[in-house]
């Protein structure tokens, strides 16, 4: 009987009712989760910045006065500036075709678009070497024509496009599917051109989801390590991206510089997380629910 009365009041005060654990258990569970997250997530982040400033601001800044570091930063920015827009255009095209039309083989196509997420970064690099490396399928032909793809910028860009391939598309497809085609049909009936319909009707509807996808795509493009490591050839000052430069500094026991450069990438991750949380909080409904990766 007392159970029943407790159950009846629980709609008013769910925290003190029978549908939660006792206070002791709750506190215990929260403590275990927090200690675990502190150990596994917070400390690694903190240690990056502490180690970066181990020799003060001067030591931190010294890492960025090296020509190799600046070359690495420039290369990473270049790669992202090509790979992210390329996947953005692809994401828009793919989501338009998949979300606005009904055709056979659609679910297979979606599975194929997601494929790069289930390939190891190292394997993602390897497959481009098998195509364009000296022993690769097109290697001899490329060599004969003096075109360098592997161990050069094009290879790094291709590998980066591969590992960030699904980000924009997988964000937009469910969102555009949910929105349907009624608004676009109305615009077309009223005489708007296809382009005008896309720019003034579709794009405003998907802008937050698009931004969200681009944000995640960019973070991965700038931070990719395994795939780029395989195709880059590690030529200092030429084919080293920021993450590869971090690896070289670390392996040379130049820890302060390694963590200083790494702190740049960690800051990018923090900004990405902050913007991502902001988008989820402010525009959650426009991102299509439950699209967490």
């Amino acid at each position, binding site marked *: 009987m007392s159970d029943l009365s407790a159950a009846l009041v629980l709609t008013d005060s*769910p925290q003190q009712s029978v549908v939660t654990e006792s206070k002791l258990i709750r506190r215990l569970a929260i403590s275990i989760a927090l200690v675990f997250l502190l150990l*596994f*997530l917070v400390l690694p982040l903190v240690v*990056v910045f502490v180690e970066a400033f181990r020799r003060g601001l001067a030591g931190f800044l010294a890492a960025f006065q090296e020509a190799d570091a600046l070359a690495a930063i420039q290369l990473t920015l270049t790669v992202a500036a090509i790979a992210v827009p390329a996947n953005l255009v*692809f994401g828009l095209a793919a989501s338009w075709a998949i979300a606005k039309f009904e055709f056979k083989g659609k679910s297979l196509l979606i599975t194929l678009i997601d494929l790069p997420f289930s390939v190891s970064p190292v394997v993602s690099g390897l497959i481009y070497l098998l*195509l364009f490396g000296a022993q690769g399928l097109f290697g001899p032909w490329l060599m004969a024509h003096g075109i360098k793809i592997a161990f050069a910028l094009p290879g790094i860009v291709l590998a980066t496009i591969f590992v960030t391939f699904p980000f924009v598309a997988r964000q937009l497809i469910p969102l555009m599917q949910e929105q349907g085609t009624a608004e676009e049909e109305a615009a*077309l009936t009223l005489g708007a051109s296809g382009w005008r319909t896309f720019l003034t009707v579709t794009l405003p509807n998907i802008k937050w989801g698009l931004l969200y996808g681009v944000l995640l795509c960019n973070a991965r493009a700038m931070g990719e390590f395994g795939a780029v490591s395989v195709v880059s050839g590690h030529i200092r000052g030429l084919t080293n991206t920021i993450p590869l430069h971090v690896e070289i500094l670390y392996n040379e026991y130049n820890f302060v510089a390694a963590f200083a450069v790494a702190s740049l990438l960690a800051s990018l991750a923090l900004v990405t997380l902050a913007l991502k949380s902001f988008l989820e909080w402010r525009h959650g409904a426009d991102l299509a629910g439950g699209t967490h990766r």
Partner: protein
Amino acid sequence: MRPALSLRLKQSSVLPGFGVTLGYTLLYLGLLVLLPLGALVVKASGIGIAGIAATATEPRVAAALKTSFGISLLAAGVASLFGLLTAWVLSRYDFPGRKLIDAIVDLPFALPTAVAGIALAALYAPNGWVGSLLEPLGLKVAYTPLGIFIALVFIGLPFAVRTVQPLIAEIEGELEEASATLGASRWRTLWSILLPPLLPGVLTGFALAFARAVGEYGSVIFIAGNLPYVSEIAPLLIVIKLSEYDYTGATVIATIMLAISFSVLLLINLLQAWSRRRFGHV
């Protein structure tokens, strides 16, 4: 009037741009994803089953595969357990800083793997913040298989949390109220009413964390010590084979890893189909 083929391929629509966008999608997908993966298949079939078996049973390769898959299973299991606890705590309890903690769960997705790798190595090294506390207990983490385990738990955690969280949010309050009014203890309600519908999410999270862990490279190699036969992971062995220009060896290891991660992917899809039938949600 559309040609008959296109009528069969797609249902008619007044929206324009189907041909252009689908064509571009297929071309881009074909050139950048399917062609390179095809190169791997071509190379692997050139080696043949016997050749693949011969490389896969080389002691060093077999040891690396065993290390990768064994530790990934273990790490995905631990990440799933703590992921379930974390998801529950974040969804059900209120405490200061909950929103911030919830945002930081995605850190392993956003933090470049090389940065995570050197940070974990610095923390768990014998003179690191955590390593120096564990050293007197005789526990060595960095440069041992235990270090690989730590890195893979880190990388798997967000998968485990994010697959369970939406399912916890979907639980209908009436169920546990009914269970409580019928006299079940809280533990009984948790165990037999609340946990079963979460199981597909936990399993999906486990599979995703496992698939990611098997292929993980950047966050592992700095903390692993990379001792052949002991703490050398399969992706690292691919890199080593490539630096020795042994493309065949690298291809064999990559093929085995791909075959297993695609099987896991298939398993996830079956799991979700089963879950839809059994519980009515993904």
